């Protein structure tokens, strides 16, 4: 809110009260308009149906709070620091104290707080703290003289440097962490499950990144290929008794073929139109799965999908055919967690394959052609690139990885139905890619952890999960509109021989060039 104006330092410290009133009243009105329906009316279960109860007192509180908070924000912007720090700080301390007491003693404290719900009160508390901190930071800056203003380019260069360094160290660090994750002391079954889920989305994100991030084709039906992969494996396994590892390549090929099938007619479309058609394709696949009862079992789904084996050794207590199992072979105690750990490593490997493949192909002519196509299709054509074939390969390869991920999903769940492949899945995967910073590999990981992992871990917070999801999206869009880690690594470096790139030695590198 008002971020761009807030950044320019106030020219004169005087407060423009009229502007303050205008802005605050506007904010309050917007909040009032939004909250009348969303907060003011609530449907509640009563005996014999639903009743609508009104909560206009909450609407009033929210509106007044919006007015006051906005006014405080404007005051900070106009250089009034101390009063804001004192008032907001005092209120924040009081609220924190009350909330702490509520939490510690379990005694209802809502009589002293604006809202009846501790989480909403907590959010308000956080806003107060943020305001006080912001004012304090501004105060410090004003005491230390005006900070050196950074130009837009300097800011961008700094961000790029940060992202570059971050990616360089974070990549190996994250991989090492992922490798030892199942053996960390705090990791129990729940955390393992969450990690497997996050990793699945990381893989899907990396796969979609090829299509959206590299080739710049907005695909809103990616989940269709995920579904094709899942059903390919499920049907093969349940009908022909084939194992996961045998079916995996086939599922990838199936999904890739569907990618080609869709790609042929639609890749002449551009931008919005492509998005709409892919959206439709995703739905068509789901509807077919739902209605082709003889083949897919329709809404009942497919159950009893077998788990993957470790080089032929099943991870079960007792092998069905009396054969040897994993724990017998390795002389270990049987534990149900073993199977999840194994699944975790399977998806880790699949995801890493996707990642390595993408990193490698970016440096090959075809990968570079994808990126060039995203930047300027006409230029590409006049350089002799066949845009249709280039896009088709991107589409098919992206689909293939979705197919792999789909097989994994099927084997992990043991049961699949069309329910799992709705549009919202496509949207979430796309959100992971876009918020991660299109084309950024580590960005996808960070975004998947934030968008998938955190909501799972905070499942206890139930209805606030989606609130936090939306909040995270808004914050990312405000702070990093191009994505968390938006920075395109060049595919060729002159120091490929050995030395690491260091910021600032471009000159030396240029001289060292042939």
């Amino acid at each position, binding site marked *: 809110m008002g971020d761009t104006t807030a950044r320019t330092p106030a020219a004169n410290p005087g407060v423009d009260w009229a502007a303050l009133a205008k802005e605050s009243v506007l904010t309050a009105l917007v909040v009032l308009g939004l909250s009348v329906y969303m907060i003011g009316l609530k449907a509640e279960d009563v005996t014999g149906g639903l009743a609508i109860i009104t909560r206009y007192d909450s609407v009033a509180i929210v509106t007044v709070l919006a007015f006051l908070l906005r006014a405080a924000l404007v005051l900070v912007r106009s250089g009034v620091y101390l009063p804001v720090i004192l008032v907001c700080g005092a209120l924040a301390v009081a609220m924190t104290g009350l909330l702490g007491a509520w939490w510690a003693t379990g005694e209802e404290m809502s009589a002293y707080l604006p809202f009846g719900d501790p989480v909403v009160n907590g959010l308000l508390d956080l806003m107060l703290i943020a305001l006080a901190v912001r004012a304090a930071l501004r105060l410090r800056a004003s005491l230390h003289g005006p900070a050196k203003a950074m130009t837009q380019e300097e800011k961008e260069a700094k961000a790029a440097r940060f992202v570059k360094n971050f990616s360089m160290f974070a990549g190996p660090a994250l991989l090492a962490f992922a490798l030892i994750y199942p053996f960390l002391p705090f990791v129990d079954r729940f955390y393992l499950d969450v990690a497997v889920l996050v990793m699945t989305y990381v893989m899907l994100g990396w796969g979609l990144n090829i299509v959206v991030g590299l080739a710049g084709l907005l695909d809103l039906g990616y989940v269709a290929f995920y579904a094709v992969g899942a059903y390919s494996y499920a049907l093969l396994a349940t009908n022909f008794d084939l194992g996961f590892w045998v079916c995996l390549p086939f599922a990838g090929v199936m999904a890739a073929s569907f990618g080609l099938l869709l790609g042929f007619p639609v890749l002449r479309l551009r931008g919005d139109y492509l998005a709409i058609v892919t959206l439709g394709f995703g739905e068509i696949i789901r509807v077919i799965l739902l209605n082709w009862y003889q083949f897919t079992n329709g809404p009942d789904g497919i159950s009893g999908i077998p788990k993957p084996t470790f080089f032929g050794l099943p991870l079960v207590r007792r092998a069905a055919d009396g054969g040897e199992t994993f724990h017998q072979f390795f002389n270990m105690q049987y534990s149900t967690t073993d199977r999840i750990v194994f699944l975790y490593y399977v998806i880790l490997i699949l995801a890493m394959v996707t990642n390595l493949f993408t990193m490698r192909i970016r440096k090959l002519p075809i990968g570079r052609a994808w990126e060039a196509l995203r930047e300027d299709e006409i230029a590409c*054509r006049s*350089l002799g690139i066949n845009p249709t074939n280039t896009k088709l390969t991107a589409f098919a390869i992206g689909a293939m990885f979705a197919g792999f991920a789909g097989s994994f999903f099927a084997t992990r769940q043991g049961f699949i139905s069309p329910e799992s492949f709705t549009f919202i899945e496509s949207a979430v995967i796309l959100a992971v890619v876009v918020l991660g910073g299109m084309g950024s590999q580590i960005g996808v990981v960070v975004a998947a952890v934030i968008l998938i992992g955190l909501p799972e871990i905070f499942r206890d917070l139930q209805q606030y999960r989606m609130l936090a999801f939306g909040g995270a999206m808004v914050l990312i869009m405000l702070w990093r509109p191009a994505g968390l880690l938006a920075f395109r690594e*060049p595919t060729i470096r002159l120091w490929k021989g050995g030395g690491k790139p260091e910021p600032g030695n471009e000159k030396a590198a240029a001289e060292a060039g042939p």
Partner: protein
Amino acid sequence: MLSVSGVHTFYGNIEALRGVDVEVAEREIVTLIGANGAGKSTLLMTICGNPRATTGTITLNGEDITQRPTFEIVRMGVAQSPEGRRIFPRMTVEENLRMGAVTADPQYYDEDRARVFDLFPRLKERVEQRGGTLSGGEQQMLAIARALMSRPRLLLLDEPSLGLAPMVVKQIFEVIREINESQKMTVFLVEQNAFHALRLAHRGYVMVNGQITLTGSGDELLANPEVRAAYLEGGH
């Protein structure tokens, strides 16, 4: 080498080319001049098949390319530095050059790269810089360099002097002469800068409203009173 005969091109209902005939012989520099909106860029684009000629034929080395897709025409040895440069802004200079060389045999890459860096030393200093952050003139150099990377036999240049300082214009024209002479490359050049273009070119065409109205050697056109009045007065 290139022969355009009776070509009409439409943008929807607008007839941008109204029966154009142009011949470009092997190892020639031929220039096309004309007012804004005359259809010069359209002709260059039509040669590359985008947009396609509605009627008429375009042949390259005797082969009919009128209906060929753009990428195939380019692979037959035509390179275009299109209007507005169209370099890849987020890619580095090096990557842009690589993109130029996608259709070429990779074994010549280093050699070709060294050659364009000889022509444009400024680019060599900036191999790691992103295309979008180059200055306008540098972007123009990159666009030409990128076109050269495909080892074309026919080079189509659309206003290479656009927006450049007089010194750089001179340098670019020098480069065009150089690649024509030393690399035996045929050049078809669209220019607003009629004076320089006609002095450089062996032959020239004048286009008005989608039709060729005048043709002749560079010197003839320079001396022609009509050309002088329309394209050369006021300056030079």
